[in-house]
């Protein structure tokens, strides 16, 4: 309930509030959401983020500001993972198997992809790899394809972008770039 007249905020004030919001958000926070909370227009928020991002880069501190899965996020810098891990007493997560990674690559580039399409590229049944990826919430079912057998289609999830540090799917290198020939 704001009774008093709203004072226009200064840019530095907006930058600070943006930083505070990015810090408390559980997931990468979008410009749209920031603009709504601040009651400022998107351009102002984007300018504030650009300013903030510059500050983080210049400071070269323990934290970094990154654009992930369509939003902004504050995280530690990779350089300090040993110390952070020691403090948190965590070990790196179990890595995905080659089969699961390959399946994920096919889905990421061909989405929405069906099991027969994945089979054609991988030359192997991928049911258990798909289950693993679904369990880890890296892929999601995207309805059925209107073709023979109506196979389920799969696409990558927001978690995929977060876990692989991607702003959006367009940040993935083009599949044609991987055409290095077998010698």
């Amino acid at each position, binding site marked *: 309930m704001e009774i008093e007249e709203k004072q226009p905020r200064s840019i530095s004030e907006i930058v600070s509030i943006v930083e505070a919001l990015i810090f408390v958000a559980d997931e990468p926070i979008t410009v749209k959401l920031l603009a709504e909370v601040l009651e400022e227009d998107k351009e102002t928020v984007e300018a504030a983020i650009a300013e903030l991002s510059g500050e983080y880069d210049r400071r070269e501190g323990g934290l970094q500001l990154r654009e992930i899965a369509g939003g902004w*996020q*504050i995280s530690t810098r990779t350089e300090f993972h040993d110390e952070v891990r020691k403090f948190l007493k965590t070990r790196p997560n179990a*890595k*995905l198997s080659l089969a699961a*990674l390959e399946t*994920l*690559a096919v889905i990421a580039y061909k989405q929405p992809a069906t099991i027969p399409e994945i089979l054609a590229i*991988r030359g*192997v049944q991928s049911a258990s790899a798909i289950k693993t990826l679904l369990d880890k919430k890296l892929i999601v079912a995207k309805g059925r394809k209107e073709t023979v057998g109506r196979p389920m289609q799969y696409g990558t999830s927001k978690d995929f972008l977060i876990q692989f*540090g991607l702003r959006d799917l367009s940040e993935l290198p083009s599949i044609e770039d991987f055409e290095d020939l077998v010698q």
Partner: protein
Amino acid sequence: MEQAEQLSFDFDKVQPHFNTESPDDIKLTLGEFSGPLDLLLFLIKQERANIFDIPVAKITDEYLKYIRLMKSLDIALAADFIVMAATLIEIKSKMLLPREILAESEDEIEDPRQELIDRLLEHQKFKNAAEMLYERVTIEQAVFRRGQIETDANNTETNANVFDLLTVFQKILARHKEEVQLEIHREEISLAEMLKTLRKRIFEAKELNLLQFFAELHTRRELVTAFIAVLEIVRTESVKLTQSATFGAIVLRKI
């Protein structure tokens, strides 16, 4: 190879290879193949062959050798590996057949290997893409975000003050009041008492039908006590247990 799905791996370390010290003695270091195309790519690399000009006969031999090895190692062979073996043999046999004489130029003769080459190239791209994803996730695992902030939404023990506690306590008290109190009296009968009763009954009537005696008792506890009393009385006093027929009545009789 579905069963290898959950294993973690390292692109640098886990590369399968044959150790061929002597041609008859092939030692196999098993790595993880994601499928038959993967195995095929590996074998082509192993032979230092050109992917556009696959020596099909040689590669087919190697492929079959590998499959036999996997069999002897008791690895459940996925059907997909067998399908690829069949495809290879098919291509090999096609290549043995004389080329179509009717074809007018070299271009029109389709290489029986073409489809396989296309699939291998396509697979190679996605294999590289998988490697890229692997690198990305490895880097990403070195990045940490702040821990969860406690909010009412993610904390099950939400804020409660003294008055909340009091309200809950009053509710509990009210519920307690409504409850009907049922008092259950336990009838205690000791072994000594039971022995006394039993002895009296036997010595008065000279004999006692056990089934009848037990039928007079009501609770499980009494029955157990009575049973022990029977055993005790037989052991200590001049009373014996008799049964006139199989499954007949058991009678306690004074000697």
